[in-house]
C-alpha cells in the first residue's frame, strides 16, 4: 500500500500533468480522479489506475482519498478547497488560489482551522532556471537588483466552455499567467508597493489579450511583466532579465533550449508543425513541486511557497487588474 493517496479533481491539462507527475513519486498513489464532463478522464483514470468519479462530493468523501489535488478552473477553486477541508482532507490547489482576496482568506482560514494543509501550485519556484537566477542574486554576484523584466507569452488558452475567455472566471493573462511572475518576483524582491497595468481585454477582441504591468517594490526595484494570450497558436515562451548594480542575468526559453525538432513533412500524418522546442529535465519541475508538497505533508514542514504567498501573489494580480480598469496606479497596503 502506498503512503499517500491522492484524488485529483479536474482531468484537464493540469490534472493530466499532475497525474503523470504522481506516477514518478513512489510514495504517492493516484486513488481517484473526478471529471464532470461525461466521457472524459477515463483514459487518465485507466493510466493511473485511479477510480473515476463524476462528482466532487463522491471523490472527496472517498475514504481512500487523503489529499485532494484541485486542478479545476480558477472560479471553482474556493468551493472545492472548502469542501475538501470540511472533509478533513489536505489540499493541493492550482494557481491562482482564488478569484478574490476574501475567497482566498476564507480558504486559508478554513484549512488552518480544521488542521489540513493547503499547498498552492506556484510551480515557477521549482523551475531550475528561476531558482538558479535567485541563487545568483542571493550570492551577490551581480550586486543590488534594480530593473527586472519578465515575459510569459502564449496563445489564447482553450478551456472547457471557454472559461479562460471569461475574465471573471479566469482573471485573464494577469491572473492566470503573470501571477507566476508576481510570485517569483515577490519571492526574490519582497513586497510590492505600487502597481500600474494595461491590458488589451475588450469586448471587441474576445479571444485576444495582452498585459503589460509595472511593479514598484518596497525595497526599491522596479519590475516590468509582459503576459500574452495574443501569440500564434502553439507558441509559448518565457523570458526574464534581472538588471542589477553590478551585472545582469538574462534568460529566454526560446534561445536557451537543448532540442528543437523541425520536420519537413509530418511523420504521423498530423498537420505539419513549424518547430517543436523541448527543454527536458530528468525531473519535471511539476514533479519537483508535488514531491516537495508531499514531503512537507509527511514531515509537517513549511512549503517553499505557502498559501499566504499565493494570496499575496493574487493581491498583486488583483491590483494590476484594478489599475488596468481604472487607468490609475494602485498602492498596496503594508501588512
Amino acid at each position, binding site marked *: 500500500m502506498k503512503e499517500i493517496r491522492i484524488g485529483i479533481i479536474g482531468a484537464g491539462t493540469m490534472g493530466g500533468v499532475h497525474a503523470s507527475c504522481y506516477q514518478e513519486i513512489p510514495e504517492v498513489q493516484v486513488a481517484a480522479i473526478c471529471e464532470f464532463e461525461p466521457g472524459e478522464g477515463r483514459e487518465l483514470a485507466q493510466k493511473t489506475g485511479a477510480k473515476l468519479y463524476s462528482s466532487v462530493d463522491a471523490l472527496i468523501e472517498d475514504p481512500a482519498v487523503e489529499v485532494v489535488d484541485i486542478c479545476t478552473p480558477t472560479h471553482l477553486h474556493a468551493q472545492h478547497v472548502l469542501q475538501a477541508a470540511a472533509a478533513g482532507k489536505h489540499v493541493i490547489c492550482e494557481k491562482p488560489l482564488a478569484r478574490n482576496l476574501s475567497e482566498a482568506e476564507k480558504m486559508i482560514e478554513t484549512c488552518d482551522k480544521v488542521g489540513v494543509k493547503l499547498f498552492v501550485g506556484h510551480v515557477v519556484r521549482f523551475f531550475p532556471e528561476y531558482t538558479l537566477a535567485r541563487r545568483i542574486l542571493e550570492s551577490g554576484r551581480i*550586486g*543590488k537588483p*534594480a*530593473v527586472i523584466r519578465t515575459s510569459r507569452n502564449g496563445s489564447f488558452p482553450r478551456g472547457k466552455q471557454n472559461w479562460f475567455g471569461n475574465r471573471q472566471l479566469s482573471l485573464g493573462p494577469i491572473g492566470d499567467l503573470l501571477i507566476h511572475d508576481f510570485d517569483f518576483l515577490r519571492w526574490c524582491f519582497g513586497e510590492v508597493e505600487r502597481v500600474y497595468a494595461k491590458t488589451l481585454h475588450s469586448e471587441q477582441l474576445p479571444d485576444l489579450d495582452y498585459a503589460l504591468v*509595472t511593479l514598484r517594490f518596497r525595497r526599491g526595484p*522596479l519590475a516590468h511583466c509582459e503576459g500574452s494570450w495574443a501569440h500564434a497558436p502553439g507558441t509559448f515562451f518565457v523570458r526574464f532579465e534581472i538588471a*542589477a548594480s*553590478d551585472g545582469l542575468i538574462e534568460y529566454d526559453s526560446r534561445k536557451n533550449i537543448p532540442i528543437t525538432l523541425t520536420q519537413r513533412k509530418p511523420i504521423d500524418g498530423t498537420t505539419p508543425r513549424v518547430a517543436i522546442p523541448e527543454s527536458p529535465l530528468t525531473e519535471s519541475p511539476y514533479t519537483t513541486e508535488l514531491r516537495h508538497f508531499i514531503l512537507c505533508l509527511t514531515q509537517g514542514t513549511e512549503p517553499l511557497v505557502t498559501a499566504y504567498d499565493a494570496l499575496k501573489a493574487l493581491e498583486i494580480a488583483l491590483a494590476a487588474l484594478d489599475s488596468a480598469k481604472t487607468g490609475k496606479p494602485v498602492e498596496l497596503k503594508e501588512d
Partner: protein
Amino acid sequence: MVKIGIMSFAHIHAYSYAPALKKLQDVEFIGIADEDPKRGGKVAQELAVNYFTDYRALLDQDLDAVVVCSENVRHREMVVAAAERGVHVLCEKPIATTLADAEEMISACQRNGIKLGIAFPCRYGAASKRLKNLLDQGAVGEVLAIMATNHGKMPGGWFVDKQLAGGGAVMDHTVYVVDLLRWMLKQEVTRVYAEMDTLMHPIEVEDCGLLTLEMEKGSFATLDASWSRPKSYPTWGDVTMEIVGTQGILSFDLFAQTLSVYGDVDNQVAWENWGDNLDLEMLRDFAQRIANDQPLWITGEDGMKALEVALAAYESYKLHQPVTLPISRNL
C-alpha cells in the same frame, strides 16, 4: 557641396557623426568647435579639419549647416546662435531640457528661415523602414500594444549631471522610442505614467525608468529607458519593440545585426554590429535636404513632441499618477 561643421564634442555621438561627415561625398566638413581645447584639438587633428574653441568662430566660416552636439542644456544657446547666423541645424536629441527652450529654438529657426532637424537616427536604416512598411501594409492588423526597450550603459560625465543633462536615463532614452512610435503609428502620445529611480549607480540622476504610454487611438506602449546594461554587457544597449496587433505579433530588434566575438586578447565578449550605419544615413539625408532646400524629415517639432513625453514622465513620477498631454509649458 554642403558645408557642414560640428558644434561641440560634449555628446559622444559627435564621434560617430564626424567620420560619417568625412565619408559623405557631397559634404564638405568645414571644421569643429569645442570649448575644451584638449578634447577639441585632438579630435580636429585626427579628423584633419579646422578647429575653433569658440563656436561663434565656427559660425563665422562659410557654412551651410552645423550639427550641435553640446550638453543638452546648451542646445538652445547654440541652435539660436546658428539660426541668427543663417546656418541650418541638426541638433542632437533631446532637443532641449525644457519646452520653453525647445519653443525658443523652433521659433528662432522659423524667424530666420532656418531648417532645424533633430538627430533621431533610429528612423534611418533599412530595418526601421521595413518595420514601418510592414505596419503600413497591415502585417499585424491594427496595432494594439507595444512593449519597447531602449537600454544603455550608464554614460557618466555630464550625462549624469542634472544641470547639464536635464535628467538621467529617462531624459536620455525616452525620446528615441517616442519618435519611432509617433512616426510608425502616425499618432501622438496622450498619457504618460512612469516609475523611475537611481538603483544601480552612485549618481544624482535616475538610472532606471519604466514608462507606460497611451496613444491617441487607444493603443498603449511601455518603454524601459534604463541604463541597465552592465559594463560587461557585450554591447552598448538596445532598441527593441514587441508590437501586438489584431492579426499577429511583430518583433523588432534594431541592433540585432551583430557578430558575437569572444576575444581572449582583450578578454572580452562583444556583439559587433554589421547593420546599417544609422548615423551615416541620417547625415546623408540631412545634407541632401539642405542641398536641395527641402523640408527636413525630422523637425524641431518632432523633437519637442518627444521631449514632452520625457518631461511628462518626470511629472508622473513626482505625482505617482498618469499625466495627460499636453503638459504645462512650465515643466
